[in-house]
């Protein structure tokens, strides 16, 4: 009986997290359209529902009801497989991210799906598999724009993965563990002062992570793979209807995942920025939900930054992008790792 | 319920033999290269299995080194393949049988 409750609770947890995640993806799209609208001095979507709040629903319905075109020259199995790979890789990573304190109910961790010893590596691994979605979509479309987009994208993602991986090494060195809960627990002693980005002196690493994350998720200023002014739409030129929607959702899901990872690694995860400055208030329910609130707030500010950058910066040229990744980010990341380990060796 | 260690070893042997088969039969140089990677993977599985059986970490260290060397080998090998394709315009090993480029 006990094991049945355990399994049911876990399934429930996975379902709830997935639904909330997908809702968050839909509303990130709205957030982006609203914010970019404001930056460009216009309203953004405002017709569907109050303040345009039902716009994601309308978008989803539209994409779902559109005709699913299958171009004649495509390589069919891979053409269908590619968006599935992209979306599923984007959705898996959320499974290892902790949202709140380790509060157990019937032996089930309430605020994390799976607490793994190697959680950080799982996220890096899933990100590296995600490249195939884009690479295969471009190749199987049999279209020169798609192929160019996906060639650019695979080269870009593989190059920036190195910088991304090296930027988090400093934090792993500080924590001595790859478990995401350990990483957060190290940061929640003195509020904002003990966050890795400030107290851990990892701001250089944070900057590298930020650049690499923008490149990994193919967002402006590194959105070369879908640069619409030169490649029509890049790797998803030939896609329509639900298959296009899957790529679209994958992009925004990746944004949220990157935001969650940045929050956990650099911004103290679910810990409050004030530390123990204020005495605990409210009942146990408030105490359990307050960390989740901080977590969501941090992820939200990260997404805000994403959209802000998109509204502000122009696109890089391809050779500039590669040069930036290999000549600047990678050496700086290596220097950061060396500096962190030297400091830890003499003071740690 | 335990899995017999021997099953892992037989799986590893089967993968290794399929790798040799691919190496001999395939004509595309990239696929031949992939067969070599398959053989390396099969050996890795055997290493991890023995590490598990003898409760030794060194078996896994071997796999670690094999992975590193395989990465280096793949980079150089694919670079050779690219320069070969540039000069010969084919990937068929039967047409790449001269000693010079």
């Amino acid at each position, binding site marked *: 009986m006990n094991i049945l409750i355990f399994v049911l609770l876990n399934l429930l947890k996975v379902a709830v997290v997935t639904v909330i995640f997908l809702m968050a993806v839909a509303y990130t799209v709205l957030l982006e359209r609203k914010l970019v609208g404001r930056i460009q001095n216009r309203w953004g979507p405002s017709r569907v529902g109050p303040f345009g709040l039902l716009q994601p629903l309308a978008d989803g319905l539209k994409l779902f009801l559109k005709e699913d075109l299958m171009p004649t020259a495509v390589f069919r199995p891979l053409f269908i497989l590619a968006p599935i790979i992209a979306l599923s890789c984007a959705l898996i990573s959320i499974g290892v991210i902790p949202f709140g304190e380790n509060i157990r109910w019937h032996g089930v961790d309430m605020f994390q799906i799976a607490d793994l010893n190697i959680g950080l*590596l799982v996220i890096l691994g899933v990100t590296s598999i995600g490249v195939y979605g884009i690479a295969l979509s471009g190749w199987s479309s049999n279209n020169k724009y798609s192929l160019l987009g996906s060639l650019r994208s695979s080269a870009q993602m593989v190059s920036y993965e190195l910088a991304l991986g090296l930027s988090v090494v400093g934090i792993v060195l500080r924590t001595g563990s790859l478990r995401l809960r350990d990483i957060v627990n190290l940061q929640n002693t003195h509020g904002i002062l003990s966050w890795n980005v400030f107290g851990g002196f990892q701001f250089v690493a944070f900057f590298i992570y930020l650049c690499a994350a923008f490149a990994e998720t193919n967002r402006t200023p590194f959105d070369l793979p879908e640069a619409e002014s030169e490649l029509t739409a890049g790797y998803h030129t030939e896609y329509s209807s639900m298959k296009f929607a899957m790529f679209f959702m994958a992009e925004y899901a990746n944004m949220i995942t990157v935001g969650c990872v940045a929050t956990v690694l650099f911004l103290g995860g679910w810990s409050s920025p004030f530390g123990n400055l204020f005495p605990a208030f409210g009942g146990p329910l408030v105490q359990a939900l307050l960390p989740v609130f901080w977590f969501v707030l941090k992820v939200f500010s990260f997404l805000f930054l994403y959209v802000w950058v998109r509204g502000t910066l122009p696109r890089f040229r391809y050779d500039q992008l590669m040069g930036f990744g290999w000549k600047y980010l990678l050496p700086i990341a290596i220097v950061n790792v060396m500096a962190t380990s030297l400091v830890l060796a003499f003071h740690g | *319920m335990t899995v017999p260690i021997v099953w892992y070893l037989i799986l590893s042997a089967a993968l290794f033999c399929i790798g040799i088969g691919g190496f001999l039969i395939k004509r595309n140089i990239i696929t031949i290269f992939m067969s070599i990677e398959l053989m390396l993977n099969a050996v890795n*599985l055997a290493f991890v299995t023995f590490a598990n059986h003898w409760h030794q970490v060194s078996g896994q260290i071997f796999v670690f080194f094999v*992975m590193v060397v395989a990465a280096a080998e793949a980079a150089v090998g694919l670079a050779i393949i690219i320069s070969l394709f540039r000069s010969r315009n084919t990937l068929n090993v039967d047409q790449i049988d001269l000693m010079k480029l």
Partner: protein
Amino acid sequence: MNVAIFILFGLLCLGGAMNLLLQRHPINSALSLIVVMSSLAVLYLLLGAEFLALAQIIVYSGAIMVLFVFVIMLLNAGEEERTHGSRAAYLAGIPGVLALFTVLASTFLTLRISFGGTRLGSFLVTTGDLSRVLFRNLLLPFEVTSVLILVAILGAVVLARKEH
């Protein structure tokens, strides 16, 4: 549970490896090899090698195979041609491979009793255990491999560069 996972992913491995052999287009072979490597990662987890499982995914499926797929896409050489050069391989190779497999399998089967069985959790190597051995006892080989990688990077750049 252990047995079910082993059989599922073992069959995936074998199926992927056979598919690599049977497909004519290199990109299909590359994809089946990715399936093999990812299922091997699951088997590593089952054998208690958690770091290696993820290293397998990151290094093999995520980096090496992306390189392969990238090169296949770049060269876009199309399907493999059938030529006569492979006849000798068919005649001598396949019986040889089968014989090798029989020898290996029968050797392993005779050792069946002494090897015994394993299960998830009977032996777990954490990242800490692995790095302790790697950085204390095997530091020199580790450093030498990093030099090897550096040489390989230089070699790859020189080889793949276009001549002017």
